[in-house]
C-alpha cells in the first residue's frame, strides 16, 4: 500500500530539504523536482462556509509560494473531492497536498489515502483544521477567515519540508480482555469466544451477572431476567475460550493496541475455587446460626452470614468469606465449624492476594453503572422513613428468588394498599445529575404493572415526561395506563410521615395537568433512581487511558460513527459505562464492541503512525538524559557504541526525548525542526 515516489527518501542526514537552503520564497529544489503544492479548502456543507469565507481562503492560498493550485469544494471528503486531489496530482504534477477541512481525527486517513491514490507518498500531505479550530469556535466571519488563512499558510510552509515516510506494521495479539461481567461483558466475551478468540473476563464482584441478575422481569416483554441471563452466565463458565476471573481488579495497563500488558490483582475469597462445588454445607455449619450482615445482592433487604454464596444463580457457584465479618479473621479464635463441614478442604484462611499479568491485543470496557444514591435527594426521606424504597430494592421484592419470595410486602410484612413511584430521582436535576437516565420510565411502568398484579394496590406514577422510545415500549405504556395506574404529571415535592399513621406517608405533588397540588397518602413510596457513572470511573479511565465526557461516562470516539470505540486504539466500550442504556441496547453495543475487537484482531497486524523518534547515531554523546524521561520505556542505551537507541515499535511519538536531548541528536518524523519552524513562521506571517 505504500509507495516510494522516487524523491524525498533517504537517510535522515540526506534530507530533501536542508534548512540552510530554504530562504523565504526560494524554490526548494536541492536537486529534487520543484515543490508543487495543491491546496483544497472544504466548505463542509455550511459547517465551515457559514463562518469562514472559503473563496477568500482559497484565493489567498493560491498566492502562496510553491502553490500550484488552490481549490474549494463543498465536501472534500466525498468521492469527487478525493478524486479531484488524485487527478490534480496526476495532471498538474503536484507533489505536496494540503487540505483545509475538519479535524485530522476524522479525515486524515481519508486524505492521506487520496494522496497515495494520486501516486504520492501519503505523508506528503498536511491537514488544516478550519472547522473545530475556526468556524465552529468563532462568530466573527472576518476574523475566522483570517485565522483560516493563517493556518493554511502554516501548513503550506510546513508541507514543503515533508519527507516520504513508511508506516510500520506490528502484530496484534489475538486475546481480548473484557472488563466487567454484567450482561455487556458476558455478551462481548461470548461473542469473541464463539469466534475462536481467547477472552479474559475480569469481574470485580464474586459472581458475574451484574445488575441484570438482580432484576425480576424485563420490560416491555416481561420475560424473566434470570431465565435469559443464567444460561449465558453458565456458558461463560463452561466456555473453553473464556478465562473467568472474579474478585479481580485491573491495576495497571501498559503497552498499546495489539499488545497490551494488563496487570490484574486477584483478591482472596478464602476459598479454593477449583475445589468448592457450592454445596453450601460450610454456610450451614457457620457459628452464626442466622444471617447477620446485609446481603449486597438483596440491597440490604435480607441478611447473610460471613461465609456465603453471592446469590442463588451465582457463577461461579462458589462461596466466599468476608474477612471483615468472619470471627476467625477478627479474633483468630473461631471454632472453624465451616472448615470441618467442608469435605473438599476448599476453605483457605491463609489465601493471599495474587497478581498476574495478561497479554492481550484489545480491551473491552463493560464496567457498568451505579444507581443514584437516594439520600442525595433528602426531601424524599430515603433512609429515614422505612416505607421509602429505591426501585432496585423493589426489583428484589418482586423477584421470586428475592428476600420475600416475590411477595410485595412492606418491612412489617403487610401488603401495601397504595404505592407511589417517583420518576426522575437523581435524573434531570441540576443539583444531582442533569441527564435523563433513559430506563427509569420503562422500569417504573413495569414496577407499576407488577405491583398491581401482585397486590391490587392503587399505584401512582409521578412523572415529568414519560419517555418510551423503543420497540414495544409505547404499547407497554398504553397497557399500564389501561390497567388503571394513576399517571400524575408532576414531581413529588415532599414526603411526610404522619405521627400516628402506621408509617403511612403523605406526598405533595403538583398535578400539573390539572393545575392543582394533590396530597396523596401512600404506604409505599418507590424512588425511581437514575443511573450514574460508577464512583471510581475516573480512576478506571486513567488506568485504561481513555476519556470521560463532562458528566463522567466513558467517552466514545464519535457519538454517531464510532460509538463503541474510544480515543485509545484497541479499547472499546460496551453497555452503561458509556451512558444509560436498557438491556437490548447494551447487548447490541456489546456485540458491536466484540465485532470491532474481532475486526482488529483478524487483521493480524496494525500499521503504526510513523511519527516516531530516532537517534542520529553519530551526534549522540551517550549522556542518557533521554532514557528515564521516556514514558514508554522505548529508549535503551547501547553500551558498546555508547549511544541511545529508540525502539520504534514502543515509541508513541510524544517528543519528550527530542526536546530533552542536549545535543539535538534525536529527530522525530513529521515533527522535524524545519517543519515546526516553518509552521510557526507561517502562522505568524500575518499578511
Amino acid at each position, binding site marked *: 500500500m505504500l509507495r516510494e515516489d522516487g524523491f524525498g527518501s533517504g537517510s535522515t542526514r540526506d534530507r530533501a530539504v536542508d534548512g540552510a537552503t530554504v530562504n523565504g520564497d526560494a524554490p526548494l529544489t536541492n536537486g529534487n523536482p520543484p515543490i508543487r503544492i495543491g491546496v483544497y479548502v472544504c466548505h463542509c456543507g455550511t459547517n465551515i462556509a457559514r463562518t469562514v469565507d472559503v473563496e477568500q481562503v482559497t484565493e489567498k492560498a493560491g498566492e502562496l509560494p510553491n502553490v500550484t493550485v488552490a481549490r474549494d469544494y463543498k465536501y472534500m471528503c466525498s468521492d469527487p473531492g478525493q478524486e479531484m486531489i488524485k487527478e490534480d496530482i496526476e495532471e498538474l504534477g503536484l507533489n505536496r497536498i494540503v487540505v483545509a477541512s475538519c479535524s485530522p481525527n476524522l479525515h486524515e486517513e481519508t486524505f492521506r489515502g487520496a494522496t497515495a491514490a494520486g501516486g504520492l507518498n501519503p505523508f506528503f500531505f498536511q491537514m488544516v483544521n478550519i472547522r473545530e479550530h475556526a468556524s465552529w469556535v468563532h462568530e466573527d466571519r472576518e476574523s475566522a477567515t483570517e485565522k483560516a488563512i493563517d493556518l493554511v499558510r502554516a501548513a503550506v510552509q510546513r508541507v514543503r519540508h515533508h519527507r516520504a515516510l513508511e508506516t510500520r506494521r506490528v502484530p496484534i495479539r489475538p486475546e481480548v480482555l473484557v472488563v466487567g461481567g454484567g450482561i455487556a461483558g458476558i455478551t462481548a466475551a461470548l461473542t469473541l469466544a464463539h469466534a475462536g478468540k481467547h477472552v479474559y473476563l475480569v469481574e470485580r464482584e464474586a459472581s458475574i451477572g451484574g445488575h441484570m441478575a438482580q432484576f425480576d422481569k424485563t420490560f416491555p416483554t416481561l420475560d424473566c431476567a434470570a431465565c435469559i441471563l443464567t444460561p449465558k452466565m453458565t456458558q461463560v463458565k463452561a466456555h473453553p475460550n473464556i478465562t473467568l476471573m472474579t474478585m479481580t481488579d485491573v491495576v495497571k495497563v501498559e503497552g498499546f493496541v495489539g499488545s497490551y500488558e494488563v496487570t490484574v490483582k486477584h483478591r482472596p475469597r478464602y476459598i479454593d475455587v477449583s475445589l468448592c462445588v457450592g454445596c453450601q454445607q460450610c454456610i450451614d455449619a457457620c457459628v452464626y446460626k442466622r444471617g447477620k450482615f446485609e446481603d449486597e445482592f438483596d440491597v440490604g433487604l435480607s441478611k447473610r452470614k460471613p461465609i456465603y454464596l453471592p446469590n442463588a444463580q451465582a457463577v461461579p457457584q462458589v462461596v466466599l468469606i468476608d474477612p471483615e465479618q468472619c470471627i476467625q479473621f477478627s479474633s483468630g479464635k473461631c471454632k472453624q465449624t465451616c472448615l470441618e463441614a467442608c469435605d473438599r478442604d476448599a476453605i483457605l484462611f491463609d489465601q493471599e492476594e495474587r497478581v498476574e499479568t495478561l497479554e492481550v491485543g484489545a480491551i473491552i470496557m463493560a464496567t457498568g453503572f451505579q444507581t443514584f444514591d437516594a439520600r442525595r435527594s*433528602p*426531601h424524599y426521606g430515603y433512609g*429515614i422513613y422505612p416505607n421509602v424504597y429505591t426501585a432496585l430494592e423493589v426489583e428484589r421484592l418482586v423477584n421470586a428468588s428475592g428476600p420475600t419470595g416475590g411477595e410485595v410486602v412492606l418491612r412489617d410484612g403487610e401488603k401495601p394498599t397504595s404505592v407511589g413511584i417517583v420518576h426522575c430521582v437523581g435524573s434531570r436535576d441540576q443539583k444531582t445529575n442533569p441527564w435523563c437516565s433513559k430506563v427509569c420510565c420503562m422500569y417504573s411502568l413495569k414496577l407499576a404493572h407488577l405491583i398491581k398484579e401482585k397486590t391490587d394496590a392503587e399505584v401512582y406514577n409521578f412523572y415529568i415526561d414519560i419517555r418510551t422510545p423503543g420497540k414495544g415500549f409505547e404499547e407497554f405504556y398504553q397497557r399500564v395506563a389501561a390497567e388503571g395506574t394513576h399517571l400524575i404529571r408532576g414531581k413529588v415535592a415532599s414526603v*411526610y*410521615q*404522619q*405521627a*400516628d399513621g402506621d408509617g403511612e406517608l403523605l406526598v405533595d405533588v403538583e398535578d400539573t395537568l390539572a393545575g392543582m397540588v394533590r396530597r396523596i397518602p401512600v404506604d409505599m413510596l418507590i424512588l425511581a433512581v437514575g443511573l450514574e457513572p460508577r464512583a471510581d470511573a475516573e480512576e478506571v479511565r486513567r488506568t485504561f487511558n481513555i476519556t470521560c465526557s463532562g458528566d463522567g461516562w466513558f467517552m466514545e470516539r464519535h457519538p454517531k460513527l464510532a460509538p463503541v470505540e474510544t480515543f485509545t486504539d484497541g479499547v472499546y466500550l460496551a453497555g452503561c459505562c458509556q451512558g444509560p442504556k436498557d438491556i437490548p441496547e447494551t447487548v447490541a453495543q456489546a456485540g458491536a464492541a466484540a465485532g470491532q475487537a474481532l475486526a482488529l484482531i483478524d487483521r493480524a497486524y496494525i500499521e503504526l503512525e510513523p511519527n516516531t523518534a530516532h537517534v542520529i547515531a553519530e551526534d549522540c554523546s551517550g549522556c542518557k538524559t533521554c532514557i528515564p524521561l521516556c514514558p514508554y520505556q522505548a529508549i535503551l542505551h547501547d553500551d558498546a557504541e555508547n549511544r541511545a537507541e529508540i525502539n520504534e515499535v514502543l515509541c508513541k511519538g510524544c517528543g519528550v526525548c527530542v526536546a530533552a536531548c542536549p545535543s539535538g541528536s534525536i529527530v522525530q518524523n513529521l515533527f522535524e525542526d524545519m517543519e515546526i519552524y516553518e509552521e510557526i513562521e507561517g502562522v505568524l506571517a500575518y499578511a
Partner: protein
Amino acid sequence: MKKLAYYPGCSLKGTGRAYDESLRAVFEVLGEPLEELDDWNCCGATSYMSIDKREAYALASRNLALAEREKADLLTPCNACYLVLEKTRRHLADSAEMGHRVRRALDAVGLSYEGDVRIRHPLEVLTRDVGEERIKEAVKEPLKGLKVAPYYGCQIVRPYATFDDQYHPQTMDRLLKATGAKVVPYPFKTRCCGASQTGTLPEVGLHLVYRLLNEAEARGADVLAVICPLCQFNLDAYQSQVRREYDLEPIPILYFSQILGLALGIPAKKLGIDRCVVSANRVLERRAAHAA
C-alpha cells in the same frame, strides 16, 4: 475565634426582646459575653427587597462595613437578618456592578467594605466554637423528660445552607439534647410559619401556624423551640386565635436560648420567659420538679 459583633436586629429590640435577653444571659454564663455592634441599622428584611433592590443592599451592607471596621464577624440571631446579611455579603462578592454601587454609597459616609466579614448564627457558634461538651459541663439543671420539637424556620437553611443541613438541620437538636431534654421528631423543622401573612392575610397565615402547632402536638412535644423572632411571634401571639378555629392544646413557644438558659440555671425572669403569651409554666414546673 474571630471577634463577634452582636447584631440583634430590630425584632430583638421589640417583639423578640426575650431572644435578646436570653442570648445575652446564655453567652454570659458560657464566658463569651456579647458585644453589640455599635450604630447598627435595620437589615431591610424582605419588605425592603420588594421595593428597591439597590437600596436594600446598601442598607444591609452598612452593617457589614461597621463590623469590618471592628475586625469582627457578625453574630446574627434573627433568620431574616441572617439571610439578608448573608445574601448581601454574597451578592457584593459576586456582582461587580452592585459591589461598585454599594461601595460608592458607603464611601459617601466614610465607610468601606472589603468583603472580610462572615455572618454567623448563635447555633453555629454554640455548636462549633463553644462546643456541646462545654455546654454539657455548664448545665446545672438538666431538663430531663422535657419533650421539645425543634423548629428552625425557613431562611436559616434556605436558600443557603451555610452551617447546617438544608433538609434535616441538626444544630439546635444537638444543643437541646445537651440540656438533657428529649428532642421529638419534627418533620416541619424548616416549613414556613406564614411570616407576615398572619397580619396581612390572617386566614392564610393562621392555617400555616396551625399546621406547625398541630404537628408539635401530634409528636407529643411539651414545647416548641424556635430560633427566629418572627416564627416565635406567629406561633405564640397568634396561638389563641388559631385555637379559636382549630382544636388544639396550648403549647409554649420558647427560643432555644431560653431553654438552654434554663438548663444552665439562669433565672426565668432573666431569660424573658414571662414575656411569652402562651404560658411556659409547664416547662418551668418540669425544671422545678427535677430540682426538687
